[in-house]
């Protein structure tokens, strides 16, 4: 093993802004070695980001107490003075953040921002030298030189994160702290950023501290992993060990919460048979939802004229009764627009849409935004009944309470406001409201993307149970292929408003035909599951 470059010993962080001190990190010790990529994994509230900020010297609130040691170059970063700390920041220890959209100064040029660390720490360099170094590092981060003179708002999210990486790497730091650097990005972009980090790590031998909630990502990127929960280190070890044989209960729960994608022998047989026969049996029942060559536009106002911008192009698909239909795509793929076109919220469409008799109910990604913050849970649950014209208060109340119990909450939640609930509880309420509408088809638009993995697993289980119990038909929209595999029978992949591929689930996952599908599977770490090659060999 290489020399240790950073040692954290018994780090404690406490907040004192409330009456009782709140411990966010307690007795954390670990070592980061030269050239190592160390992952810190945990759910929200685990203290992983606080640890990262403490190492980067960015925790300086007055109402906070930090104890222990963070040793770097023989200095305890918690004790040394501001000037010493600053001489490390950006030069020896640099950091990139979760939100590339907001982490760059919106009114300064990219070049200026990338060069900033050089200007601060290497005053001997001339303007020309700075510029040359900046252009070099931009190139190293696979950005075009034109970016130098652009502003952040002119770049995409992935490009902005590259700029952040460039500006963090320009002084060749010993340590790069990456706090959820890919969480806000699309999966394929995420994959590129991961490759870039790996490339820089190999080339410059920079140690990387990688903070993430995404276990599968950490598994692919990091050599060693620390698992944290409620500010305490639960388990530490090599990535392979932790994921293959977790020792602690929490780690087991955490790894168990990742939806598994496995092809059983039986299903493999069935898949091969249906591929061989070339036909799949079709459902004799009428489809509930059907679109036929659907196009959709939105009108862009401004500059005096109205432009029609196409969002959906030639989309045709069918949802059968009892089916869970998975719709997968990255941002800008038109998946949410498709949902809105089906429900009739987006009206500017061309092409036939067959809608179910009792319409749609919908649950959204952000459970906080989809519950009216001014109303109580009970009121919200009864609103669908009121709209349907039911006036009997007692009956409404009883039905609302029954529904609460169905989604795993109790009657006491009737009088709570949405902001008094946790994310998982809110999503349960949203599901309850949707079911109260007694619609034929439930549309779930990224219903678990905003939730922690363990909560995610609970909500997915609830949806599955309800589906079985009530024989629901669901249009399940997600960017997460693992989640979709676990929920859906049939999968459709979209890109830029067009259908890339649609088929039964196993066909998509194990015999993908389109390159884009393969890219998505690769990005999710599912690329090596394909059995297309085996089939070819058998032939």
């Amino acid at each position, binding site marked *: 093993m290489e020399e240790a470059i950073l040692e954290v010993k018994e780090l404690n962080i406490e907040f004192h802004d409330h009456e009782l001190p709140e411990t966010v990190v307690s007795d954390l010790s670990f070592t980061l070695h030269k050239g190592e990529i160390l992952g810190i994994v945990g759910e929200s509230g685990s203290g992983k980001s606080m640890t990262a900020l403490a190492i980067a010297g960015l925790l300086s609130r007055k109402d906070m107490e930090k104890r222990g040691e963070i040793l770097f170059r023989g200095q305890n970063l918690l004790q040394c003075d501001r000037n010493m700390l600053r001489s490390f920041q950006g030069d020896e220890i640099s950091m990139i953040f979760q939100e590339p959209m907001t982490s760059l100064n919106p009114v300064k040029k990219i070049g200026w921002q990338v060069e900033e660390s050089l200007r601060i720490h290497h005053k001997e360099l001339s303007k020309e030298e700075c510029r040359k170094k900046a252009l070099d590092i931009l190139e190293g981060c696979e950005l075009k030189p034109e970016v130098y003179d652009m502003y952040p708002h002119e770049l995409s999210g992935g490009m902005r994160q590259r700029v952040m990486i460039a500006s963090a790497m320009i002084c060749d730091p010993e340590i790069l702290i990456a706090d959820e650097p890919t969480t806000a990005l699309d999966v394929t972009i995420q994959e590129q950023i991961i490759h870039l980090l790996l490339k820089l790590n190999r080339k410059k031998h920079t140690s990387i501290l990688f903070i993430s909630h995404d276990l599968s990502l950490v598994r692919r990127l990091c050599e060693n992993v620390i698992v944290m929960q409620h500010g305490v280190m639960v388990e530490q070890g090599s990535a392979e060990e932790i994921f293959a044989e977790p020792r602690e209960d929490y780690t087991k729960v955490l790894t168990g919460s990742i939806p598994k994608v496995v092809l059983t022998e039986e299903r493999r047989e069935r898949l091969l048979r249906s591929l061989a026969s070339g036909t799949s049996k079709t459902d004799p029942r009428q489809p509930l939802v059907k679109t036929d060559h659907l196009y959709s536009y939105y009108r862009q*106002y401004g500059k005096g004229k109205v432009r029609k911008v196409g969002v959906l192009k030639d989309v045709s698909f069918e949802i059968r009764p009892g089916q869970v239909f998975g719709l997968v795509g990255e941002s800008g793929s038109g998946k949410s627009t498709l949902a*809105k076109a089906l*429900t009739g*919220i987006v009206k500017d469409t061309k092409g036939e849409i067959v809608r179910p008799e009792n*319409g*749609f*109910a*919908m649950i*959204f*990604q*952000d459970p906080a*935004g*989809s*519950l*009216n*913050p*001014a*109303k109580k849970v009970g009121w919200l649950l009864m*609103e*669908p009944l009121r*709209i*349907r014209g039911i006036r009997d208060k007692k009956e409404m109340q009883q039905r609302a309470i029954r529904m609460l119990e169905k989604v795993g909450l109790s009657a006491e939640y009737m009088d709570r406001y949405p902001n008094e609930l946790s994310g998982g509880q809110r999503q349960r309420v*949203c599901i309850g*409201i949707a079911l109260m*509408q007694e619609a034929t088809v439930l549309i779930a638009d990224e219903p678990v993307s905003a939730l922690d993995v363990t909560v995610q697993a609970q909500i997915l289980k609830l949806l599955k149970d309800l589906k079985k119990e009530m024989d629901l038909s669901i249009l399940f929209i997600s960017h997460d292929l693992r989640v979709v595999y676990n929920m859906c029978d049939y999968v459709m992949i979209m890109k830029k408003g067009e259908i890339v591929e649609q088929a039964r689930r196993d066909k998509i996952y194990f015999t993908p035909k389109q390159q884009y599908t393969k890219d998505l599977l690769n990005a999710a770490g599912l690329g090596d599951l394909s059995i297309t090659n085996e089939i070819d060999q058998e032939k």
Partner: protein
Amino acid sequence: MKKFKPNASLLAGCILVGLMLLMVLWGWIATPYDPNAMDADLKFAGPSLSHLMGCDNFGRDVFSRILQGVGNTFIVSVGTVAIGVVFGILIGGLCGYYGGWLDEALMRCNDVLFAFPSVFLALVVISLIGPGKYQVIVALGIAFIPSFARMVRSEFMKQRNRDYCLSAQLMGASSLRTMFVHILPNALPVILSSVIIGFNNAVIAEAGLSYLGIGVQPPEASLGAMLSDSQSFLYKDPMLCIFPGVVMALMILGFALLAEGLTEKKK
């Protein structure tokens, strides 16, 4: 709900506005003296127990005139804000909810009007319909519509695009139900604080117009006109200016603190 934290601004604002309402009521029920009764013996009399704030150049009781003036200011402010809010919510709500060409057209006009200071717009309207208390209400009311409409529109647009609105529509709620049952309660805090700021501005604007002599017409008292009259006697009796001026400043301060306190509480 969180524990109610005592908030100095809110408390002070409530007290000052409460005092103002008391004065308004007092002025409506009975002033200590007839605000227009002149008494040649009492010209420029200083403050005393019988005349709390003394008498003016005609020997009229200043305190009674201030009570009447506060009452007039209050009526004008309420009228002004009412016109502004009603038309503001109507125009802003429709534009924010429906969007499209209606929004484009109305907001273009609104932006042009919004660019002009409200006192200036009021002056133009008054030059058309003439001076007077009720004319001032109309003039200021019209002048206040653009800013209210703009505020309501942006709030409605913000709320309308949130998922809970879509969810309500999917349940089958009508546009009216979505607008008034779902959106309005969420927009109320913002509307409320701008109503209070509207009061603040209305008091300043009314006093300014009355000071110019085109607001409330004599012999009826108004704080602005009292200031303007007393200015000629600045050497002789400065208290004549101080009393109406301080009362006016306290009214403005009260509304400002109230608005400030409400925004603080929201955070």
